[in-house]
């Protein structure tokens, strides 16, 4: 029982999150005027008629490669910020350890570059 009590903050957090969602949805549906008509219910309400399906055309593989490269460096940045904050405490070894991480990422980046993943025109 004592164990379960330790998780109380997490349960409270989950309860608060669910409660907030329900509150916003309920308040929105009570407050806003409800006036649907066919034009409004169409997928893109920006003045231009949509043509065909969204999944009609194939995306170029390049988009995915660039997206994956973006994620890699996004994650690197995510690690760099907390590392920079505590740099004073973790000392020289901690300083070097980040360079091991950056080196491994650089290997991958250099490989992708040489392989031509960043060439847009082929």
């Amino acid at each position, binding site marked *: 029982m004592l*164990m379960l009590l330790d*998780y109380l903050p997490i349960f409270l957090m989950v309860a608060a999150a669910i409660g907030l969602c329900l509150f916003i949805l309920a308040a929105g549906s009570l407050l806003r005027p409800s006036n649907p008509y066919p034009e409004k219910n169409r997928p893109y309400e920006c003045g231009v008629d949509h043509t065909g399906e969204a999944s009609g055309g194939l995306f170029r593989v390049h988009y995915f490669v660039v997206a994956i490269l973006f994620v890699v460096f996004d994650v690197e940045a995510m690690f760099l910020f907390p590392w920079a904050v505590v740099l004073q405490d973790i000392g020289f*070894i901690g300083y070097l350890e980040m360079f091991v991480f950056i080196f*491994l990422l650089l*290997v991958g980046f*250099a*490989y992708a570059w*040489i*392989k031509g993943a960043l060439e847009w025109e082929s």
Partner: protein
Amino acid sequence: MDQQAIIRSIIVSSPEIIVILGACLLLFVALMKNKHQMTILTGLSLAIILLAATVTAVLSSAPQSAYGGIFVVDGFANFFKAVFYLATALTLLMSGRYVVEEGIAEGEYHALILFALSGMMIMASGRDLLVIYMGLELQALSFYVLAGYLRRDPKSNEAALKYVILGAVSSGIFLYGLSLVYGLTGTTELTGIAVALSANEPPGLAFALAILFLITGLVFKVGAVPFHMWVPDVYEGAPTPITAYLSVASKAAAFAIVLRIFLDALAPAADIWIDAIIAIAVLTMALGSFVALVQSNIKRMLAYSSISHAGFALLGIVAGGPDGVASVMLYLLIYAFMNLGIFAVVVMMRSGEVRGDQIEDFTGLATDHPVWALLTLIFLFSLAGIPPTAGFFAKFYILMALVQEGYVALAVIAVLLSAVAAFFYIRIVMLMYMSPPTRRFDLALTPSLRLALIVAGVGTIGIGLAPGWFLDQALGAGFAETLAFAGGVSP
């Protein structure tokens, strides 16, 4: 950690570092287009493995721990690393002509194999659930790509997609089990979990749930019933050398963490999981043996055979104790030799227009090529567990450990199911020896494939001749002493 501890940790983990840096190097060597590229890449990979193996041998003089006790180099880890080095080297040797003929002789093949190797080495050395998980994922991600390496073959695409989706699900389940274990014991370190488990008895319902998730995730990686569905499809679709690698090295790595987690960290809670493992082992052996009977594709048949072998090896975990651990380790070593051998034979049969993965393709092989047919016969007899091949002793020691622990009924079931399994191995032998050839054989033999076949054959026969010595090695390499050791040294 102070500077000295860091340097010591780097030395202790240097085989892994060598393999990872080597794989990075191979990536760039692969970019340089060259006529002899395949030869250079294979030679370089073998040199890296040899270097790592040498360093492992040097480090194996005494058990050591690093990175604050989450990474160990003990006899257990070194034994498994030896199996991985062997499997990787043989896989590389049998790849040469196959990848050229399939038109996949490019780029990252060798680098990915080495990345998978490093992941498995980390799995074997990890003493912390998170480190083990890291190794598991590194290994799995490399195998997802390798399984789909025949990019223009729909079967290979199917294999990769199935493997990645099911692998991700199982990793998620495993990770959830880890999080529960961490929540209940307050540590991810295996020794800490064992201590916490023996301290507060009895483990409650939440812990049973955690073990259920861990078993599910691990059984998935081992390829045992009821989570075996991916095995035949992945094994059939993947390039044959990769199938061999997957079935031997990846399975051995999965067993390494099963042994470490269940017989080390979760040993105090054995009452909870032992019945589940018994049921899984028996079902796995039964399903693997019976379904293999009706297969016509040899890669699918070997997939079911590997499922049934996984079930047999799980029995060693049921037996537990130093004998049980040693019997599973020896089983995996022998399985590595005989299974890589039979897959090298399948690679040998693939030549020109003949895919060579149908069981009928073996018809009459003995008439034209008596030597290679004999070698195939030895591998098949070993897989079936017929003395005096090594496969017999693999099963024998597991049965011994079982009987010593009093699981006589279980041992009888295991023997009966092995008899069923023997049938479909013998069927190929019958086809090779009793039928006249229906076509001219044009075997895809290269010097390196010959070497792989001979090494596998020598291993299969050699262990069969001196099984006691190898068992002693496995017994000496157990992690029984590391529990006390890790408690004393880890900071």
